[in-house]
């Protein structure tokens, strides 16, 4: 879409764009180019000389069992977070769409976690699940489960998944509810008149019409799990025990800051960029489709 009526001038629009372009070039393109360059270089231990090593850093990464483990952890983590954050939100949105009384209060309260930082969500959940005094943690131990997320890799992963998913419920709920409210009520009423049961109406009419929203949210939640959950990991497990909860973004930070492996960290950044670009491309392809059909 383009405008018909426009203003003339060449210098003025450039001036208007200048602040954003400067920040974009200095803090986005320049660092991204640096990451690309460093990903094919290796620095000696003292940072005195660098040499071109081609794809060696990438080869090194993919030969490193710790990196492959991190890929696996990220995959499990992001899929679990997305599923756990989406399913309860859909159920709650379907229910909120049916009630009249108290609808606004439910909506207001259910959205609350959206405003909470992932790092703080991590603190709240770590407090609940502390093995010695946490309300849930000590309860689990009393019923005979050997709960100690500080030692048990699976439990640690489970806890960061729960905390990260909880934080997303409000956001997903809002989008599902908006999606449901956009479905014409006449469609559902017609099906009811034809004798379709409530569950049949949901699976045959509501759910397919909600598919675009669900797909959009799936991508958004995977992006969130990949890139916005550093604070959860850092506050709950610091990537441990061992590397059981070290997702890719955590590893970039850890290898670059604590490990001082610039080439390896840069190569990891480049891989992450490829992941974001792929996810964004999927999202936009789909958004475009939605514009056409709906």
């Amino acid at each position, binding site marked *: 879409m383009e405008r018909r009526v426009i203003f003339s*001038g060449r210098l003025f629009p450039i001036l208007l764009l200048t602040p954003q372009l400067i920040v974009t070039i200095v*803090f986005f393109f320049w660092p991204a180019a640096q990451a690309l360059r460093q990903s094919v270089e290796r620095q000696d231990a003292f940072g005195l000389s660098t040499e071109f090593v081609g794809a060696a850093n990438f080869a090194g990464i993919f030969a490193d069992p710790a990196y492959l483990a991190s890929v696996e952890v990220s995959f499990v983590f992001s899929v679990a977070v997305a599923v756990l954050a989406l399913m309860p939100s859909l159920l709650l949105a379907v229910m909120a769409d049916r009630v009249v009384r108290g609808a606004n209060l439910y909506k207001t309260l259910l959205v609350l976690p959206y405003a*909470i930082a992932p790092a*703080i969500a991590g603190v709240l959940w770590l407090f*609940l699940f502390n093995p010695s005094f946490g309300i849930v943690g000590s309860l689990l131990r009393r019923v005979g489960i050997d709960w100690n997320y500080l030692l048990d890799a699976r439990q640690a992963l489970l806890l960061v998944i729960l905390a990260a998913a909880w934080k997303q419920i409000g956001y997903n709920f*809002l989008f599902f509810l908006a999606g449901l409210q956009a479905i014409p009520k006449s469609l559902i009423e017609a099906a009811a008149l034809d004798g379709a049961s409530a569950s049949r109406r949901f699976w045959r009419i509501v759910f397919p019409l909600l598919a675009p929203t669900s797909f959009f949210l799936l991508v958004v939640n995977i992006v969130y799990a990949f890139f916005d959950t550093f604070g959860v990991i850092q506050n709950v497990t610091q990537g441990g025990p061992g590397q059981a909860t070290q997702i890719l973004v955590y590893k970039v930070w850890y290898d670059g800051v604590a490990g001082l492996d610039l080439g390896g960290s840069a190569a990891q950044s480049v891989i992450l960029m490829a992941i974001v670009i792929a996810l964004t491309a999927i999202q936009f392809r789909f958004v475009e489709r939605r514009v056409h059909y709906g």
Partner: protein
Amino acid sequence: MAGSGRGAWIPHATLLAGLALVLFPIYVAFVASSLSLGDILAAPMTLAPGPHLFANFREALVSGTLGTSGQGVARMMANSLVMAMLIAIGKIVISLPSAYAVVFFRFPLRRLCFWAIFVTLMLPVEVRIIPTYKVAADLKLIDTHAGLVLPLVASATATLLFRQFFLTIPDELAEAAKLDGAGPWRFFIWIVIPLSRTNIAALFVILFIYGWNQYLWPLLVTDSPGMTTIVIGIRQMIGTGDAQTAWPLVMATALLAILPPVVVMLTMQRWFVAGLIEPEK
């Protein structure tokens, strides 16, 4: 149909269970912030609020804990507030003119400029973290507000949102302004910005929450205690997470970290919901 007949209680029961799930961690934090450390360690912790609420909040706000070396949480909240406001206002202030330029003007390289801004969607700070740190260090921006805020300020989202809205401004309005002799600057200041009020308000809420909740970049780029934000500072209070931790103060701090973004969201809820969902439609 909706809300009538048998089974009408199911939606309410489900929603109440959902509310319990969403609010339980926050409620437990509230109770813990009103207890003494001894009460908390005597597992299981009670679910009834205790008498130390104000004392705990005061201590957290004024003097912090051992881990924060005497730095009070009040100072961290002020730091967070400055960061969140600078990010939110900064993003809005640089996005309004750039969106205006790409929508209302035709000039060489317009498409290139638009795409240059657009692709930043694909470069979240988390993926370019180490090289961005290097740039900030070269520009002597480590531990400064500029260094904290600038790398987070340019983003395509705000520009895209304003662009979308500007495309809906009727041509007649621009034509009338031109006939009245208003130049592009006057049109921008007196017509376009006032028309964008609702979008600006919606975006402010989203960006304030985004700014307040930033973690990885502030962790890397600030090191003096005087710059620590509350979301980062709470980590120093937890330490190794054992019984030595002053949990009532940690939980009071968690609530203090939640409060400002929640208040902003609730007071501006109407614009916020529209702003969050509209651009995706």
